[in-house]
């Protein structure tokens, strides 16, 4: 099940904890992967550890021309693009009273606008081939909200609405568009939290532990597979029971 041999995938934000795990999981299932992100060195390291069937195309998700170039180069490197995983995202946390326009705009620009542009850029090939899988990594806070993250939560909620709309537009062409919404996941980002902060977070998680990047990647593999052809416009929540929606 969930065999991805012969399939090609582009993963943005692949230099991060969750993005790296997604790229590895897709690759393990047999897919050829293109790794994208802003940190070229980290991408090259991941490519070296994956070996064959791996390409790197660094890109800035707040730059429209760069996004078009990314789509073109990924398709050229792999010959086609079957699976797009929109994982790239940034945070600029601040309480709303203090949030600057730049903090708001930057997060919307990268997390939402950049994702839309990249998805639009790869749709044409997917439509022609009557096959496509778009999986966007959103967040539990896009559904529940989170104090200090008005910008991030808005962008992540936006991804869900965007995906549902694209799912309706593209369903008849064999293209599914879904989201995966992680809860609190152990990554270099959460390693920086104090024990007390972690305790506070875990009090809200029935599973009583942080999730792992591999547990997010497994959800992405499922949604990217042939087997998930009848699943579209959905959000798969992977959060240890933190929010049940």
């Amino acid at each position, binding site marked *: 099940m969930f065999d991805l041999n012969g399939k090609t995938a582009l993963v943005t934000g692949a230099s991060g904890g969750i993005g790296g795990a997604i790229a590895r999981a897709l690759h393990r299932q047999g897919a050829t992967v293109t790794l994208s992100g802003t940190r070229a060195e980290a991408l090259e390291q991941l490519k070296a550890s994956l070996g064959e069937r791996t390409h790197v195309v660094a890109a800035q998700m707040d730059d429209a021309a760069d996004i078009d170039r990314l789509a073109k180069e990924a398709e050229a490197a792999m010959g086609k693009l079957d699976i797009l995983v929109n994982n790239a995202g940034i945070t600029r946390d601040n309480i709303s009273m203090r949030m600057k326009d730049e903090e708001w705009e930057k997060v919307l620009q990268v997390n939402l606008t950049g994702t839309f542009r990249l998805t639009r850029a790869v749709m*044409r090939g997917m*439509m*022609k081939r009557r096959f496509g899988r778009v999986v966007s990594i959103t967040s539990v806070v896009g559904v529940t909200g989170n104090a200090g993250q008005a910008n991030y939560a808005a962008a992540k909620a936006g991804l869900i609405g965007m995906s549902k709309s694209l799912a309706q*537009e*593209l369903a*008849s*062409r064999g293209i599914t568009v879904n989201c995966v919404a992680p809860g609190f996941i152990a990554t270099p980002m959460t390693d920086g939290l104090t024990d007390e902060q972690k305790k506070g977070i875990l009090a809200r998680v029935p599973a009583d532990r942080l999730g792992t990047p591999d547990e997010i990647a497994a959800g992405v593999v499922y949604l990217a597979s042939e087997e998930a052809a009848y699943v579209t416009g959905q959000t798969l929540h992977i959060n240890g029971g933190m929010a049940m929606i």
Partner: protein
Amino acid sequence: MSDIAERVKKIVVEHLGVEAAQVKEDAKFIDDLGADSLDTVELVMAFEEEFAIEIPDDAAEKIQTVGDAIGFITSNAKS
């Protein structure tokens, strides 16, 4: 000229699964030939490929009939 018209009509027949007799120059893709909005995007993509041209979005929006497509391609095609 007539060659372009024939090729355009052939693409429309294949793509929309309609009878060749229905594909008249004044036939509207959406109202007369049963295309949805995504079909019209795909038709434009197919024309671009067949005639090796680029049809910009603002021009594509104006191509509503078979005749519109033939007209645009006739004045823009290289071969």
